[in-house]
C-alpha cells in the first residue's frame, strides 16, 4: 500500500486573482461608470433646458391643450387638458388594437387552415397572400391603403357594394344600427355571454369526465348562455330594430356610419400584415401535431371536423399561443404607425402634445411607459391563457 501523501495546502490566492473579488470589483466599476454617465447626461439636459428657458415637471398635464385631433373611437375637444388628450390617444390605441387583433386572428387562422387545405387552389391563394403581405414593410402597406382610399372618387361616383356600403374618398360608408349605444352594449353582453359559455362548457366537460354521462341538452344550454345576456340587454332597452342605411344626398351621405380613410388605412395595415404572420404560426402549430395522433383519430373513425376540434387544435394551441402573443404585442406597438396617416392614436397625440407643450422628455417618457405597460399586460394575459392550454404530460 502506497502511503498517502499529506495534502498540500494550496497557496493562498491573492485577492486580485480571486474570482469572487474580481466579480465584485468589476460590477462596482460598471455601476460607477453608469452613474457617472447618468450624472453627465442629466447635467447636460439641465443646462440645455435652462438655456432654452424651459421648465420641467408633470404639472403641464393639467394645462389646457389647444390643438384639435381627428375623429376616432374617442373624441377630444380642444381646450381640455393634456392628460385628457393622452387618455383619448390611449383609448383610440386600445380600441384600434382590439379590433385589429380580432380581425387579424380570424383572418390569420382561416389562412393558416387554408394553407393546409387539400385543395391546391385554396392552399396556393393563401400562400400567395402570406408571401405578399409578410415580405413587404407594414408602413408601405399602411401608406398604400391611405393613398388608395383618399384617391377614390368622390361620393357621387363612389364604388357601391350592393347599394348598402359605399367606398369613396370620404372613406367607407356602411349601414349602422340607429341606436349605436344599445348596439355597443349588446356587443359587450355578447362577449360576456361567450365568457360564461366557455365556463359552462368547462363545467359540463368536467361533469361528463367524472360521471361518464353528459348533462342533458348541454349544447342547447350552452347556446342559451351565450346569447341570453345580449338578448336581455336588447329587450331591456326596448328592442330597437332600426338600421340606418347610407343614402347619397347632394354631395355626401345621409345615414349609416363612415369609417375615415385614416382609420381604414391603419386598420387594414395592422390587420392584414399581422394576419400573414398569424397564418404561418397557425400552420406551424397544426403541422407540429404528431402524425400518429391524426392516424389514431382516423382509426377510431373521428370525422374531419372532430379531428380538428378534438385532436389537432388543442395540441396545436400549445405551440401557437406564445408566438401569437408576440404578434399581438407587435401589432399594438405598430399601431403607433397611425402617426404616418394622421390617425389620432397615443403616439400621434403624444407627438402633437410634445410640440405644443414643449415637454419633449416628459411626454415621450409617459408614452413609452404606457406602451411598455400595455405590452406587459398582453404578455401576462398570454401567460394565463397558456397555462390553460398546456396539456399535462405524464
Amino acid at each position, binding site marked *: 500500500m502506497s502511503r498517502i501523501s499529506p495534502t498540500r495546502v494550496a497557496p493562498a490566492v491573492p485577492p486580485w486573482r480571486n474570482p469572487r473579488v474580481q466579480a465584485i470589483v468589476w460590477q462596482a466599476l460598471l455601476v460607477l461608470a453608469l452613474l457617472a454617465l447618468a450624472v453627465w447626461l442629466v447635467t447636460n439636459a439641465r443646462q440645455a433646458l435652462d438655456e432654452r428657458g424651459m421648465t420641467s415637471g408633470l404639472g403641464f398635464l393639467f394645462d389646457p391643450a389647444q390643438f384639435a385631433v381627428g375623429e376616432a373611437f374617442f373624441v377630444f375637444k380642444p381646450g381640455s387638458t393634456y392628460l385628457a388628450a393622452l387618455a383619448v390617444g390611449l383609448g383610440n390605441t386600445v380600441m384600434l388594437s382590439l379590433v385589429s387583433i380580432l380581425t387579424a386572428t380570424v383572418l390569420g387562422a382561416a389562412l393558416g387552415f387554408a394553407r393546409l387545405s387539400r385543395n391546391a387552389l385554396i392552399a396556393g391563394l393563401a400562400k400567395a397572400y402570406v408571401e405578399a403581405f409578410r415580405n413587404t414593410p407594414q408602413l*408601405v402597406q399602411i401608406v398604400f391603403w391611405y393613398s388608395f382610399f383618399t384617391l377614390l372618387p368622390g361620393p357621387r361616383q363612389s364604388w357601391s357594394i350592393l347599394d348598402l356600403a359605399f367606398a369613396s374618398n370620404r372613406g367607407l360608408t356602411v349601414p349602422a344600427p340607429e341606436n349605436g349605444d344599445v348596439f355597443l352594449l349588446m356587443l359587450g353582453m355578447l362577449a360576456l355571454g361567450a365568457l360564461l359559455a366557455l365556463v359552462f362548457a368547462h363545467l359540463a366537460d368536467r361533469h361528463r369526465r367524472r360521471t361518464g354521462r353528459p348533462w342533458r341538452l348541454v349544447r342547447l344550454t350552452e347556446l342559451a348562455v351565450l346569447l341570453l345576456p345580449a338578448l336581455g340587454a336588447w329587450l331591456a332597452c326596448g328592442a330597437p330594430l332600426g338600421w340606418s342605411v347610407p343614402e347619397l344626398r347632394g354631395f355626401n351621405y345621409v345615414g349609416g356610419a363612415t369609417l375615415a380613410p385614416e382609420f381604414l388605412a391603419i386598420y387594414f395595415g395592422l390587420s392584414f400584415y399581422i394576419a400573414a404572420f398569424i397564418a404561418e404560426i397557425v400552420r406551424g402549430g397544426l403541422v407540429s401535431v404528431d402524425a400518429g395522433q391524426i392516424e389514431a383519430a382516423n382509426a377510431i373513425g373521428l370525422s374531419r371536423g372532430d379531428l380538428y376540434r378534438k385532436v389537432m387544435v388543442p395540441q396545436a394551441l400549445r405551440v401557437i399561443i406564445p408566438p401569437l402573443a408576440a404578434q399581438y404585442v407587435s401589432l399594438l406597438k405598430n399601431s403607433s404607425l397611425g402617426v404616418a396617416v394622421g390617425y389620432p392614436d397615443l403616439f400621434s397625440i403624444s407627438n402633437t402634445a410634445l410640440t405644443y407643450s414643449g415637454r419633449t422628455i416628459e411626454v415621450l417618457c409617459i408614452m413609452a411607459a404606457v406602451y411598455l405597460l400595455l405590452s406587459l399586460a398582453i404578455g401576462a394575459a398570454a401567460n394565463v391563457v397558456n397555462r390553460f392550454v398546456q396539456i399535462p404530460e405524464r
Partner: protein
Amino acid sequence: MGTLPRSFARPASSPPRRPPADARGVRAFAQAHLFQSPLAGLFTFLLGAVVIVALWHILRWSVVDAVWYAPDNGAACRTATGACWAVIVEKYRVILFGAYPYDQQWRGGLIVAIWLAWGAVSATRLLGVGTRLTGWALVFAASILLLGGGVAGLERVGTDLWGGLPLTFIIFGGTIAGGLPLAILLAIGRRSELPVVRLLCVATIEGVRGIPLLALLFFAALILPLFLPPQLTVDKLIRAEIGMIIFFAAYAAEVVRGGLQAMPEGQDEAAKALGLGYWLRMRKIILPQALAIVVPALFNDIIRAFKNTTFFSILGLFDVLGATKAALQDPNWVRYGTEGYLFVFLLYFIICSAMSLYGGSIERDNQRRVRRAT
C-alpha cells in the same frame, strides 16, 4: 349460428388488385388536389372562375389599359382607365435616389449595383463565411464613402441630401453592423453570473422590446441632443441609426440567447477544463457554434430590420418610402399615389423575398449538416 366462416383470411382465389394510379402528371395532380369529389370539383371550379375574373381585371388595369409613358405632365393618364405607370417612368430618379444631386446620382446607382452584385456572390456560397462578411464590411464602408464623397476627387454631399435606395441600404447595413455585436453582448450579459450585468441586460432587452420602434427613434432624434453637450452635435441620420441599432439588438439578443441555451453544457465545461478564460471560451468555443445554430432565426430579424428602414420616412428622412412620398407631392402626379406605392411595395417584396429564400436555404443546409453529424 353456425354460418361463421372458419377463417377471416382472404381466400386464395381473390382477384389481384390493380396497381395504384400513377401519382405523377398534371391529371393525377388535378384529381388528387383539385377534383377529389364532385362537390370539391364544383367548388374548385367556382373559386377558379372568381380568381380568373379577378386576375383578368387586375391584368386589364395594370397592363392592357395602363399608360406607360405620358409626356406633358401626365396628360395621357388623365383619360386612361388603367394604371398610370408613367408616374414611375417620370419619377424613378427621385424614388431611387431622393434629393441626391442629379449629376452625382451615378454614385447611388453604383452603390446599388455593388450591393446587388455582392449579394448575388454571397448567395452562391462559393466563398468562405469570413470572406463574405469581410466583403460586406468593405461594401458598407465603400457605400458610405461613395455617397458622402470628399475623397478621391468626389464632390462632398451632406447626409441631408442622401436618399432613396442607397440610403435604405446604408441604414440597413448600419443596423446590422452595429446591432449584431451589441446583440451578442446583450445575450452573453443576460446569461452572465454577475447579477448587476444580468439585470442591466434584462432591463435593456425587455424595456426596448416593450416600446414601439417609432418611440425609440423619437427618443434618439428628439431627446438625445438634449442630453449631450451643445458642442457635440450628432447628425440626425446617425441619431436615428442609434435607435435602429438598439431596437434590432434587443430582438436579436433573444435569438442569440436561444442559441447559447441550445449549446450543450459539456462544451463550456471542456473548455474550462482546458484552462481557457471566459472571453477565450466565448470567442473560440461557444459563440461560433451558437451563432451557427441561430443564423436562420436571425434572418427573420434581419429581414424585419430591412423592412423597418421605412420608419425613417416618418422622421423626415428620404429612404425609398420617404423619397416616394416626396415625389408624389408633385401636383401633376399626386393622383397616381396608388401606382407609386405599388412600385415601392414590389421593390421591397423582391428584396425581402430574396433574403427570405436565402435564409431558408441556410436553414436547409444546417439541417443537412446536423443529420450528417448524428
